[in-house]
């Protein structure tokens, strides 16, 4: 079963801006899927269309086999969404925000109220339940939107940058939470600018840029295709000139820092041997960025050049 199928989705905004140029995308039921792309790529636009907040200009969408245009209500019942921007009434309290949202899905007040309490506790918002939502911190507001997205128990949860501006501790607890509900069967689609997040959480990924899907596949497969990795070496003594290292590319050489590109599968011993021969003493070694990030930047950078050309 496919949780989401998108065929040739297009969106041109009223000002003439073409935000989506016909994207195709498939997300399997039970998947944990990342939708990546630079600012303005069209991620939120695509999510907006899936959630009935943006009118599409072309193409079609199926949610668990239901056509979005023809069976919109069935689709809506299955989807829970956490938008990029805060969109609850900040004068209302979290408990009522959840009860009201449940009501929109036909859940009677008595049931809604127990369920609201359940999610308030689960997302650690219990203490704030009766205060106006504007008094909550940014991280709490994000968690409230997650609770709100889940209150009607959707099969597909879509999160648009849920961890933006959230501290590392809360981000990790959100990850654990999302992994848990994914394990229980909820399909999750997430956008994020933290590539490390996508790499550790998601199984499949699509990269979108300038309204087009530029890459799509399993995270592990994309990583194996990412052929090079850059390492940053900190040196004990500054070097004045980039050293010549056979088989390795020096990307940057600055004072006590050396950035070296290594092809995946290449032996690192050779590198250290050559450095030792040239009396270059390495104090520490680290990855420049995580591999998905490097892959991503390479891909998007390529696209930039194409567009400029």
């Amino acid at each position: 079963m496919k949780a989401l199928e998108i065929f040739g989705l297009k969106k041109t905004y009223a000002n003439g801006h073409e935000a989506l140029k016909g994207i195709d995308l498939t997300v399997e039921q039970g998947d944990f899927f990342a939708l990546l792309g630079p600012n303005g790529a069209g991620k939120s636009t695509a999510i907006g269309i899936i959630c009935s907040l943006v009118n599409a200009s072309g193409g079609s969408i199926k949610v668990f086999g239901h056509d979005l245009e023809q069976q919109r209500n069935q689709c809506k019942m299955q989807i829970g969404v956490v938008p990029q921007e805060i969109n609850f009434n900040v004068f209302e309290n979290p408990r009522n925000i959840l009860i009201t949202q449940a009501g929109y899905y036909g859940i009677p007040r008595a049931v809604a109220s127990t369920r609201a309490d359940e999610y308030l506790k689960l997302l650690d918002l219990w203490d704030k339940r009766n205060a106006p939502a504007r008094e909550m911190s940014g991280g709490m507001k994000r968690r409230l939107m997650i609770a709100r997205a889940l209150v009607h128990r959707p099969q597909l949860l879509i999160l648009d940058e849920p961890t933006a501006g959230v501290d590392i501790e809360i981000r990790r607890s959100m990850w654990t939470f999302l992994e848990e509900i994914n394990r229980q069967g909820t399909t999750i689609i997430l956008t994020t600018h933290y590539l490390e997040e996508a790499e550790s959480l998601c199984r499949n990924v699509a990269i979108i840029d300038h309204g087009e899907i530029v890459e799509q596949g399993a995270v592990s497969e994309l990583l194996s295709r990412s052929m090079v990795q850059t390492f940053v070496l900190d040196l004990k003594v500054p070097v004045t000139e980039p050293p010549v290292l056979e088989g390795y590319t020096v990307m940057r050489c600055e004072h006590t820092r050396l950035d070296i590109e290594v092809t995946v599968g290449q032996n690192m011993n050779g590198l250290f041997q050559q450095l030792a021969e040239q009396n270059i003493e390495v104090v520490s070694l680290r990855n420049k960025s995580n591999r998905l990030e490097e892959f991503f930047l390479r891909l998007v950078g390529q696209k930039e050049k194409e567009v400029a050309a």
Partner: protein
Amino acid sequence: MTSIAAVNVVAFKTIVVKEIRRFMRIWVQTIVPPAVSALLYMMIFGTLIGSRVGEMDGHRYIDFIVPGIIMMAVITNSYANSVSSFFGAKFQSHIEEVLVAPVHNVVILAGYIIGGVCRGLMVGALVAVVSLFFTRLTIENPLITLLIVVMTSMLFSIGGIINSIFAKGFDDISIIPNFVLTPLTYLGGIFYSIKLLPDFWQGLSMINPVLYMINGFRYGILGTSDFNIVWSFFVIGLFILLLGAIALYLLNKGVGIKR
């Protein structure tokens, strides 16, 4: 799975409860001020000036203006409620909460209309209570009174929704109330019978829809009107259908709420 009709019944109740909670939470801004201004109108126009005016259309002046003052409160508050609530929902984007859910646009519209009606009737009732300090307020025809007030309230509630659908900023939600609603209500015969006007102005007044509402309501309370009140029902009913259809069309198109 529950049927979509059952879902919408719950959704409708949810919107109405949310709307009532909203205006009750800020009752100092929503409920009290209209009662205070009504009190002032009745004191100044009714008692101080009214004693020198004598009779209007066969009634004591204060008795004559009380229905109009109640109606004015109902009109402004029904309108104000839906305009500020719907615009607020748009402005803070929380209208999206209901747009992502399987709620029919008719239900969204009806929910907001009833929210406005509740505020209109609540304020109207409060003004009526205030008026008891000035007049006995016997109601000649309770059914007509109730029907007219509910229908009028619905109509202006719809008007407020349409206004907020088009509004882009806070200025846009005060233009219509200030430049259209207030003049039409004042010229709609709250303080005078149009029989006092020269023929030309009488004729012109007849195209003011608010006149039909105030006269219909006054007929319900006092039993007299400037014309046959069947016209009142006809005009209000017509406008409800017309504006209701426009509002629904705009919601279906997603004007002002969808990108």
